[in-house]
């Protein structure tokens, strides 16, 4: 148990401690007793969160590879470790970017931190969960906190976004649970490993496929996969950018991680399931890319891009192979960093404009910032120099490796990349300064945004130019 503690639970404990500390600190309003300075509570709670997240990252990295605890309900593998660290890094960046959000809600700063840390906790637990119950509860922890986080900013739109996210999630979770109950009935188990073991030896009927599809619906809805994708545009539009930074990456990392595990174990024995996932992925990518073409609102474009990227990954996952999984994880890592870069730039603009349209993108003319943003967009578009390029090559290569049958899919994927290029170029075009009067916001700038953006651009660039070390690591995961 002690060994368990160190191997698995230390990151969780770090976060839990921070949550408890934040709650006590915030609920009792200790800061106003101790410090007179207005913003000090934000600084303190930020610091606590940062420390706990860094500690969690440290503990995660220190944990041993390949370990299972609590009757195999929680496991640890290198891939899980990588994804957990990625999630925690997103959390770290989100904390750094939260000034805009908290400036308006000074009183609820502790609330924000509790929710953020809870969702992080839910996320990393969901990644390493090895049975459906743990997965369910941790996913719920992630999404419940997100409901609040989305609804946190003042004003009506955020509330509506939160509400929509909630309803969608509730329905999808119902589907998920229905599927899980069927699987439970079929296999008498909730544990992934056991289910995989049982399914290998038994014939799988239509009920099994239906159940898997229902589980997948529950998961894919979080990724905004096609028939359940429309929420993504409304929700992203009403969401604050630092939260969006979190919303667009963390659930994606978690769900992709879970799906990789599910497909590699339990569900990979059904051709129908794979076909359906493939179809859904393709439809998502088409839907998102075409919808984005006429869109003028940057957040909505990013919503579409998010859905489309999820679609690409799902497509590749449907042709399941070890290489494909590695490629998807590599792509996911690249995508996460790119996304963080872009949202930190949007965060910078959001200080001045609430509704970010393409013509407002150029309001900040600092050259390194613009170049960083352009590098990030290039990454999304999959052009060289940025990491998205390497990621896309990996995706395509893995498709090829799964056989020539997937050549048409590959070509469709290429077509999608081209369509996507159109609106990414619109973003790049938007960044080029026009001759408009630049109105700087009244607020002091968040000092973290620009370094974060530059760092993300540098990471994107480095991953784009020298993807080999990370790619090699990803290949070792499976």
């Amino acid at each position, binding site marked *: 148990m002690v060994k368990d503690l160190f191997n698995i639970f230390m990151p*969780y404990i770090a976060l*839990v401690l921070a*949550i408890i500390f934040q*709650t006590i600190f*915030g*609920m009792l309003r200790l800061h106003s007793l101790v410090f007179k300075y207005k913003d000090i509570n934000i600084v303190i709670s930020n610091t606590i969160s940062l420390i706990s997240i860094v500690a969690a990252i440290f503990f995660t990295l220190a944990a041993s590879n390949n370990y299972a605890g*609590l*009757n195999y*309900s*929680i496991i640890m593998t290198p891939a899980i470790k990588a994804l957990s660290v990625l999630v925690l890094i997103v959390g770290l960046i989100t904390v750094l970017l939260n000034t805009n959000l908290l400036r308006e809600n000074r*009183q*609820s700063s*502790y*609330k924000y931190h*509790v*929710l953020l840390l*809870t969702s992080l*906790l*839910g996320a990393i*637990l969901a990644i390493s*969960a090895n*049975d459906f*119950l*743990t997965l*369910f*509860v*941790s996913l*719920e*922890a992630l999404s*419940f*906190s997100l*409901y*609040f986080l989305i609804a946190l900013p003042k004003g009506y739109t955020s509330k509506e976004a939160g509400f929509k996210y909630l309803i969608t999630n509730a329905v999808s979770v119902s589907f998920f649970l229905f599927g899980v109950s069927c699987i439970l*009935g079929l296999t008498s188990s909730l544990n992934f490993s056991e289910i995989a073991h049982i399914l290998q030896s038994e014939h799988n009927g239509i009920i099994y496929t239906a159940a898997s599809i229902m589980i997948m619906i529950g998961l894919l809805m979080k990724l905004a996969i096609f028939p359940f994708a429309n929420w993504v545009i409304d929700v992203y539009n009403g969401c604050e950018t630092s939260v969006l930074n979190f919303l667009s990456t963390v659930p994606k990392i978690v769900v992709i991680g879970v799906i990789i595990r599910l497909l590699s174990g339990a569900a990979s024995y059904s051709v129908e399931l794979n076909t359906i996932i493939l179809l859904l992925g393709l439809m998502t990518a088409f839907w998102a890319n075409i919808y984005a073409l006429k869109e003028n609102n940057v957040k909505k474009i990013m919503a579409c891009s998010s859905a489309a990227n999820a679609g690409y990954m799902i497509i590749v996952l449907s042709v399941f192979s070890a290489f494909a999984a590695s490629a998807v994880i590599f792509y996911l890592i690249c995508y996460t960093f790119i996304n963080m870069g872009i949202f930190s730039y949007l965060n910078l603009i959001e200080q001045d404009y609430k509704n970010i349209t393409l013509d407002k993108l150029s309001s900040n003319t600092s050259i390194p910032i613009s170049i960083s943003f352009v590098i990030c967009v290039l990454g999304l578009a999959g052009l060289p120099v940025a990491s998205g390029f390497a990621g896309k090559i990996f995706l395509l290569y893995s498709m090829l490796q799964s056989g020539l049958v997937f050549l048409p899919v590959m070509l469709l994927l290429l077509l999608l990349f081209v369509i996507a290029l159109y609106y990414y170029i619109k973003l790049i075009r938007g960044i080029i300064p026009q001759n408009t009067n630049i109105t700087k916001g009244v607020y002091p700038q968040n000092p973290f945004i620009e370094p974060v953006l530059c760092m993300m651009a540098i990471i994107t660039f480095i991953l784009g130019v020298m993807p080999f070390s990370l790619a090699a690591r990803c290949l070792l995961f499976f």
Partner: protein
Amino acid sequence: MTQALVFYPTALIIMVFSIIAILSKKIVYSLICAILVFMASGVIFYVLGAEYNAVIQLTIYGLAVPVLLAMAIMFTDVKNEKRAIITGARRYIILTSVVLIIMALVYLVAIGVNITPEHTFSPANTNLNHFRIFDAITDGFFSTYLAAFELFSLLLLAVVAGVSDNAK
């Protein structure tokens, strides 16, 4: 036989009142019907041997949730619903649901005629020892599902934190 005697009325209550709850125009009626459905499902749990589930269902869904909903209805000054105009995809979804339900019924009748031992689920333990079940559940909570259980408590904390501040 006793199981059947309990099951059929309860199932009927669940089906009828759930449909009424959805179709009724007055929101209060919907709430009352919903309470009936939740309670009836508590009975179903009991029939299935899950007393704890039944008790929790009755306390949470039978009491807490209706109270919450009733308060929400009171606070929000809900007017009666206008006649629902069901259009587009929604119409088809209802149609599909009805068709699916009928298909399921037919399937059940067809299977019910020729139930073979292999296809039948039988209760795990014919002599249900309630203490043993209790043991098993607590065991699950504190060994395999410990992480989930703890996380759930933290979740409640987070929800309390989330709700606390602004809900004046």
